[in-house]
């Protein structure tokens, strides 16, 4: 029927000019020369006014990194990265660190405003939805290229005893805490990118929630890559003491550029007895254009240690951006009865490649883990779920449930499922289920008969497919994530 052809054409016209976060901020930058060597690391360390032990730690990591090779096992392909062709430090130029929001460069505030990230504390409180009651404020740490430019609600948090600050500041102000936990979950030499990050990380967030405290508001960090030819190497460390809890959100965007940019972050979470950490990510780095030019290489190591009994770490991620994603947020379930969760939606379109999943390492008795992974591939993209569930001999009563579902849109993409199940305890129970399917013609037609456009119908069905994951996100993020899913898949039908 001619009808179908016309719809397809209309849809194709939408193209992929839909990355709304692709603008560039024109701001004066303090840029380290390209390349990586011990001098650059010393420069980063001195710019951050770090103590000697930190510099030594970085240099040790750098030496380890030099002896390593980048991992080749993931199902992604890209030309070799020239690690000497990257700026490892880029910061907006300012005389000293801003003491309050009023001192922050207006160009930066404007950038975050444009991204929809409120850095004015009072602006947030104004947002009240009818009938839904007051919206809780969110404290934001805004990281621009290599540095944190603003952190909101610090006073309110400090009153509750919660420390929320840039990690560079934590290294100076709370050296004991940082020394104790940094690298304790992800050792510098864990993998190629964690070693690189440990050597050159520039900023990121530090969260400490003391014993018995429920963090009074959602914490969030917003990462923005702006400068050219830079890498972003952020480091996040969250420590939650006995009986305490926190919910943390992370968002990321970058300008549209023809070259690839490297983002190699390390995130470490530590949960003590009865502590709980909820870590949510909406990853929307620039994915490259429809021909696969440009886009972020997102090579990230995220790991949480459930050290205490009955502790809980829950990862939720919505991954729509990046040219290449290599990321496996994991849980080490050490404390008796501790719980690990991984909820993931990964969408790839055009030429994107994603190899993402999780590791659940059951060490303690009666530990439990749940994995729900939804993979959507469109265009010429390739998406892989790769996950490990390991039950060690002492983990009697351990329980895992894994559900992986893949949805293919079009016949030029790939969707793959690679689970590893290693069980060394007879009193454990592991269940894994996976399916691959496509959106059925029946479903599409049904929605269109009710008046929905093909694009809206796909969006609706995809959101339904991802519902089990999206409902794990905090409200503000869930709405954003739903829109993002739809935008990411625009132009994929037909």
């Amino acid at each position: 029927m001619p009808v179908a052809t016309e719809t397809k054409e209309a849809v194709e016209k939408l193209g992929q000019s839909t990355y709304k976060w692709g603008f560039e901020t024109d701001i004066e930058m303090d840029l380290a020369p390209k390349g990586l060597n011990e001098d650059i690391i010393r420069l980063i360390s001195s710019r951050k006014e770090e103590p000697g032990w930190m510099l030594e730690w970085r240099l040790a990591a750098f030496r380890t990194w030099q002896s390593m090779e980048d991992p080749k096992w993931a199902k992604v392909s890209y030309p070799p990265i020239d690690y000497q062709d990257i700026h490892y430090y880029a910061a907006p130029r300012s005389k000293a660190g801003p003491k309050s929001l009023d001192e922050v460069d207006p160009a930066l505030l404007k950038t975050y405003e444009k991204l929809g990230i409120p850095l004015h504390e009072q602006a947030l409180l104004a947002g009240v939805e009818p009938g839904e009651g007051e919206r809780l404020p969110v404290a934001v740490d805004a990281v621009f290229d290599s540095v944190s430019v603003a952190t909101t609600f610090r006073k309110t948090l400090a009153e509750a005893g919660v420390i929320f600050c840039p990690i560079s500041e934590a290294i100076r102000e709370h050296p004991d805490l940082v020394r104790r936990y940094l690298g304790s979950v992800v050792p510098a030499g864990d993998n190629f990118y964690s070693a690189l990050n440990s050597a050159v990380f520039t900023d990121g967030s530090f969260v400490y929630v003391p014993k018995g405290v429920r963090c009074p508001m959602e914490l969030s960090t917003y990462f923005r890559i702006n400068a050219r030819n830079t890498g972003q190497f952020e480091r996040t460390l969250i420590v939650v003491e006995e009986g305490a809890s926190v919910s943390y959100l992370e968002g990321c965007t970058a300008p549209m550029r023809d070259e690839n940019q490297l983002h190699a972050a390390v995130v470490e979470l530590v949960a003590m007895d009865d502590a709980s950490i909820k870590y949510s990510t909406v990853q929307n780095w620039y994915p490259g254009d429809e021909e696969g030019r440009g886009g972020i290489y997102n090579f990230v190591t995220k790991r949480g240690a459930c050290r205490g009994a009955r502790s809980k770490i829950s990862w939720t991620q919505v991954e729509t951006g990046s040219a290449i994603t290599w990321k496996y947020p994991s849980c080490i379930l050490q404390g008796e009865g501790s719980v690990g969760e991984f909820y993931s939606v990964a969408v790839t379109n055009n030429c994107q490649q994603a190899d993402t999943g999780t590791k659940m390492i059951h060490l303690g008795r009666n530990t439990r883990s749940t994995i729900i992974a939804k993979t959507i591939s469109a265009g010429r993209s390739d998406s892989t779920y790769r996950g490990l569930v390991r039950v060690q001999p002492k983990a009697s009563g351990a329980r895992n449930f894994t559900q992986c579902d893949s949805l293919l849109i079009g016949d030029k993409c790939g969707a793959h499922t690679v689970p590893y199940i290693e069980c060394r305890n007879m009193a454990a129970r592991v269940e894994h289920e996976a399916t691959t399917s496509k959106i059925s013609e029946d479903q599409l037609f049904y929605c269109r008969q009710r008046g929905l456009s093909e694009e809206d119908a796909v969006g609706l069905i995809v959101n339904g497919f991802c519902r089990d994951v999206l409902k794990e996100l905090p409200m503000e993020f869930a709405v954003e994530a739903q829109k993002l899913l739809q935008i990411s898949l625009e132009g994929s039908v037909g």
Partner: protein
Amino acid sequence: MNTISPDRSGPLALFSQRLEGVAGAERQQAVAALQRVGLPSRRVEAWKYTALRALGQTSLAAPAATYDVMAARAVLDDVLAAQDTLAGLPRLVFVNGRHAPELSVLSEAIKVTFFVDTLRFGTAAAPDRDPLVALNTALAEDGAQMQVEAGVDAGALLLLSIGLGGQDSTFSFHPRHAVVLEAGARLALLCVQAGQGAYFHNPVTDISVGNGAALEHVTLQLEGDAAVSLGTVYANVAGEGVYDSFALGVDGLLLRHEVHARLGASRAAVHVNGVQRLGATQVGDMTSVITHAAPDCISRQTVRNVLDGHARGVFQGKVLVEQIAQKTDGYQMNQALLLSPDAEIDAKPELEIYADDVRCSHGATVGALDDEQLFYLRSRGVPEAQARQMLIEAFLDETLALIAHEGAQALCRAMLARKGGVGASA
């Protein structure tokens, strides 16, 4: 993307003397391929869970020119005694990798030639991609090449491979078998690998199932208690053809059954089922790669493992759906029952999909015997050991029921029953 690094000091060294003297282009190419990559270490993804350490340290010679006829006959009689219809089947018997005509009974419906006469390697197996196939290609001495003509139902054939080793013997044999079913032909092939003592058995079977043909292929690994047995099967299935494979891993120190099945034309079907029943320090590995290379094909896979003692079971199953293979229907299930605190299962069910109009699913479960069921049976008066045995049998029953050939199914059940004594943790 496996990183394969040369491993000349490793297991390959065990064969170095024998590899030096090989003749013929195919064999020399295989040796070159082997020398390039070596035998696989656990750093190779396809061998992540299975190490070849069990091959030992001393070099592996060719088997002696003669064998103990009495011992071979005893193994044969023992297998035939396990299931009473077997004695009536035509059979091909190999001892230490060489055909033993005095023990074989031929059938007219199946045209048999021997590798020793033809030196035909076939086309499905890939020495350049699989080091064990390369090793076989370099060192194969004999093997049966079985052919069934178009439209002929050849019934069943017993292919018995006997390994006769001593406690510390160090030899290896690498039979090269082939099965060709022409269009519409049918055959049930019962491969029984039985033996005693120590040896390394490395068979390669090259299978071609023609249009509308059907091959049922049941493999029983009942190898010697110190034997290493690593079998590789390559099967190409044509349109509307059926390759129905079942493997039972019971005896041997290290067992691996690897199947590469390719659905090459529409409406073909492949079943790759299996059961592993292991104890002590046994390692059993069932690995498969099912490639859907045409539309409208079906693949089914059910593998169940019962692991006792310090045994380790491995399952690696990949279903690859190429872009052309629309309307693929694939299903894969691996389940394990751990009977002992020291038993281990490593499973990697894998889907690699490039076509959008497909229905593929896989699942895996690991667990122990259900305490409630056990208690229920005991409360009804069944002694614990017997109750455990009943639950194990129940766990394996529906998988064994997938074996279509009645005699083969009965033989598998009989061999599992012999394993016996499953009640107590070893």
